[in-house]
């Protein structure tokens, strides 16, 4: 060990990171275990509503669930057929805040996810 290492701040112990990562992932897994698993149903119903107005291709639907520490984002991207571009409303989003988080926890700014809304591919 060189003398310089002595003055350098010790790296964050890996065990501390292990604990933090476990706490985050397991909080979500436990929440999902106790509550009803409504995501597939929600997705189906959302698609059904959109399909009433727009002709959508079910193979061109992209569902992404992003689990963050404070806030989870469900992102549903639906690709609309080129002709119906004008009909807007291409993406639906639902953000849920899991129960049991600290009051006053910072919620992720909605703007980040909005960037994806209305995404269209031609």
């Amino acid at each position, binding site marked *: 060990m060189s003398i310089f290492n002595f003055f350098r701040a010790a790296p964050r112990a890996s065990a501390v990171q292990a*604990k933090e990562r476990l706490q985050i992932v*397991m909080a979500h897994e436990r929440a999902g*275990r106790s509550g009803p698993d409504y995501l597939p149903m929600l997705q189906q119903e959302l698609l059904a509503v959109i399909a009433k107005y727009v002709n959508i291709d079910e193979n061109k639907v992209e569902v992404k669930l992003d689990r963050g520490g404070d806030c989870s984002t469900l992102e549903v991207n639906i690709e609309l057929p080129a002709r119906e571009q004008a009909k807007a409303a291409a993406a639906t989003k639902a953000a849920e805040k899991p129960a049991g988080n600290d009051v006053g926890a910072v919620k992720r700014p909605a703007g980040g996810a909005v960037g994806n809304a209305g995404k269209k591919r031609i």
Partner: protein
Amino acid sequence: MSKIIVMTSGKGGVGKTTSSAAFATGLALRGFKTVVIDFDVGLRNLDLVMGCERRVVFDFINVINGEAKLNQALIKDKRIENLYILPTSQTRDKDALTREGVEKVLNELSKEFDYILCDSPAGIERGALMSLYFADHAIIVTNPEVSSVRDSDRILGVLNSRSRRAEQGLEPVTQQLLLTRYDPERVEKGEMLKVDDVLEILAIPLLGVIPESQAVLRASNVGMPVILDEVSNAGLAYSDAVGRFLGEDIEHRFVTPQKKGLFSRLLRRSA
């Protein structure tokens, strides 16, 4: 009425079979008539760890299928009075474990034994589910490592929702943590989760901490439950855990690094 214990973990390779062999031996040493059952159909290993692999004629699955009597399949341990092993089949698969069949065998065993210890296979499929379904007590074997802790949490969820006690709305299965392969020196360096970290995350009572020990491999090499190695830290820690399970108040040992004297440093041997 006998008590049914399941030794489970979700994750494989964390020490379920080692712990089952040690725990069953410990219970028998204290005078309780104990049987340990291997539920890992197709991948049997309890017989090897217990050192009775050459005495297996009939197995658990033969008894379930009515091909053999229970007494023909039970192997009496040669070292310890009151200790019996019920090996499983090496050729069938987990589908051979029917709920009715397992229940029938457990009912028959419970007439004779004080403790029935079920050694669960890894995973959360049929074998693991059958091993925990009838349990009164669950011992969750966990290593201080992320994947093991996560899988233990998963199996706790399964115990709370899919065991007989959960399904029938009875008193829940009691759950205790057995933290194995614990290395106090690495914990001190901040490289390994502390006992308290794991307890905080899993939120179940601590049954025991088994230190990482070379004695475990030495014991399985010769087919001897490590609890019989009375000079090893692991053996002593298992013995303490059995005492705690039976309600004794025993302080936890081997959770802080041992001060090594000059003599043991020269010998370079950690038990």
